[in-house]
């Protein structure tokens, strides 16, 4: 794989920018954040990774999954149940990735090999999430346990052991260690997905988003590629769920609720479908906005949800493309020096044809 470092190219510049931002988060973060903020950032990294997973399968694979939270929840529960039974966190971390991936592969097999159309796919994935929600809420009885881990119904599982140093169950990671692990995992996942999109597999995935029929005429098995894309997305969401459990050592069936399922869609939509950074920014921006709104005092007839919903509505109408693509378009329009040579040529052509017309 030839990866030329071409600074004229927007995506390369963007990649460098993202890399620098993530390194800053990694090294500067612990110096300036206190413990409370550090934990908050671990939560935001976990949800950013969740948004990233949907941003990948929706924005690049063209698969609108309305139940991405099912894989997030499965990852969290798999880690929790694993670590309670095993008493060590290394294998449970793997489980948090493998269990959702295996489930997605099975679900994907039925949906993609059954040629389910896009809208039904959204409905089916949402229904699956809600089934998990209903089921997990009904597991408070003593008979619901996996090994020594009781599922505890809607109370959820608490006091879940966090990460420990691999092979040393008695030396747990402190919050700042978990912070480092989270940032490093986010960096690995982000650049891993970027790399994947440059491989033959990734390029076919994008081609399928563009024109499924043509991809088939070229001899690509669309069903296989979509199932694998869906599985990769689920694996990433599962890892995010694992980080989520480490944020407060707790998980309950709310991870499968409609609220989270809908929020992920909003994060990606607001951040920008078709980008990887956009959904991450969208998830951070929306959660910070929501938290801030929660601290404000509104008139009695307004509540936080209402104001939040109104802001999102206005935003989607005003900036339908999402944060990142719009910011990029603005930069290209008003800052000519950020344009690559090719974009300058395109702009020149556009001016020319406008002049002729």
């Amino acid at each position, binding site marked *: 794989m030839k990866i030329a470092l071409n600074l004229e190219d927007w995506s390369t510049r963007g990649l460098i920018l993202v890399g620098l931002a993530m390194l800053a988060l990694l090294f500067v973060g612990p110096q300036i954040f206190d413990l409370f903020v550090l934990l908050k950032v671990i939560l935001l990294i976990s949800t950013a990774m969740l948004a990233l997973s949907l941003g990948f399968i929706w924005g690049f694979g063209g698969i609108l999954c309305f139940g991405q939270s099912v894989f997030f929840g499965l990852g969290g529960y798999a880690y929790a149940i694993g670590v309670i039974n095993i008493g060590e966190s290394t294998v449970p971390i793997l489980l948090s990735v493998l269990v959702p991936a295996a489930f997605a592969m099975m679900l994907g097999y039925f949906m993609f090999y059954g040629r389910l159309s896009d809208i039904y796919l959204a409905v089916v994935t949402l229904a699956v999430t809600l089934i998990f929600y209903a089921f997990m809420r009904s597991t408070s009885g003593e008979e619901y346990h996996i090994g020594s881990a009781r599922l505890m119904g809607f109370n959820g599982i608490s006091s879940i052991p966090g990460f420990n140093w691999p092979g040393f169950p008695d030396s747990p990671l402190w919050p700042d260690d978990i912070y480092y692990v989270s940032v490093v995992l986010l960096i690995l996942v982000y650049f891993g997905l970027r790399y994947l999109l440059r491989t*033959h597999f990734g*390029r*076919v995935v994008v081609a399928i988003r563009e*024109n499924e*029929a*043509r991809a088939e005429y*070229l*001899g*690509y*098995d669309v069903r296989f590629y979509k199932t694998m894309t869906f599985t990769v997305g689920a694996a990433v969401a599962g890892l995010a769920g694992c980080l989520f459990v480490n944020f407060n050592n707790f998980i309950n069936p709310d991870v499968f609720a409609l609220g989270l399922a809908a929020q992920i869609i909003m994060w990606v939509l607001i951040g920008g479908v078709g980008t990887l950074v956009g959904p991450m920014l969208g998830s951070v921006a929306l959660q910070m906005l929501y938290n801030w709104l929660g601290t404000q005092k509104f008139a009695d007839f307004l509540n936080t949800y209402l104001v939040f919903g109104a802001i999102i509505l206005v935003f989607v109408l005003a900036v339908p493309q999402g944060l990142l693509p719009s910011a990029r378009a603005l930069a290209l329009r008003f800052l000519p020096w950020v344009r690559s040579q090719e974009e300058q040529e395109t702009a020149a052509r556009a001016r020319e044809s406008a002049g002729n017309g």
Partner: protein
Amino acid sequence: MAEQRPPILETRGLTMRFGGVVAVDNVDFSLAEGELRCLIGPNGAGKTTFFRCLTHIYKASAGEVLYRGENITGSHTHQIARRGIGIKTQVPSVFDGLDVRENIWLSARRHHKERETDRAVDAILERIGLTALSKRLVGRLSHGERQGVELGVVLAGDPELILLDEPTAGMTHEEVHRTTEMIREINRTASLIVVEHDMQFIKAIANRVTVFNQGAILVEDTMENVLRNQEVRDIYLGKREVA
């Protein structure tokens, strides 16, 4: 080359029903290796449906499709494509959001190794005359240029049999001329079935013509004989005169 070769493509009793409508009616069709055949017939005669049954875009109601003597009736579209059948659709089916080069690359990479792909792509771009546009988004190109891109995409797959559905639709006179040349050239290495309406174009490229009417084959003959055939004039050319 007088040796006896099996037909590259054959259908036996191929039938496609949509509810009560029989769009393709018990068609026995045969194409020799290296042949270039044109399919003509009035609108709704079943040409495009016949194409779609060949490539399993539609699942035929009855009958079978044989490729080099092997039954491919139940194979999926991508499996049929992998056997070396290239498909060019009526409305250009390309990757509009990707650039010209990426379009060709996706086709070439399927059967070339990573290292060889770029060279193969360059050769195709040269062949279809789109080298200068290689970095442009396909969705921004003119209709004729997109037709050209789709042809390039099909050729990059190195097909042995190519199905072309109205390759000159929406092309300028100049583009039709270029396409005629290109189809002749392609025919040196591949067999072709071409659905067309443009009679000048058909005269320029085909020896044998198959006339479809109401889902069935009406006549199969040389272009001259087909044009002289009274029945064909009645159902097809005759109608045009009236119109």
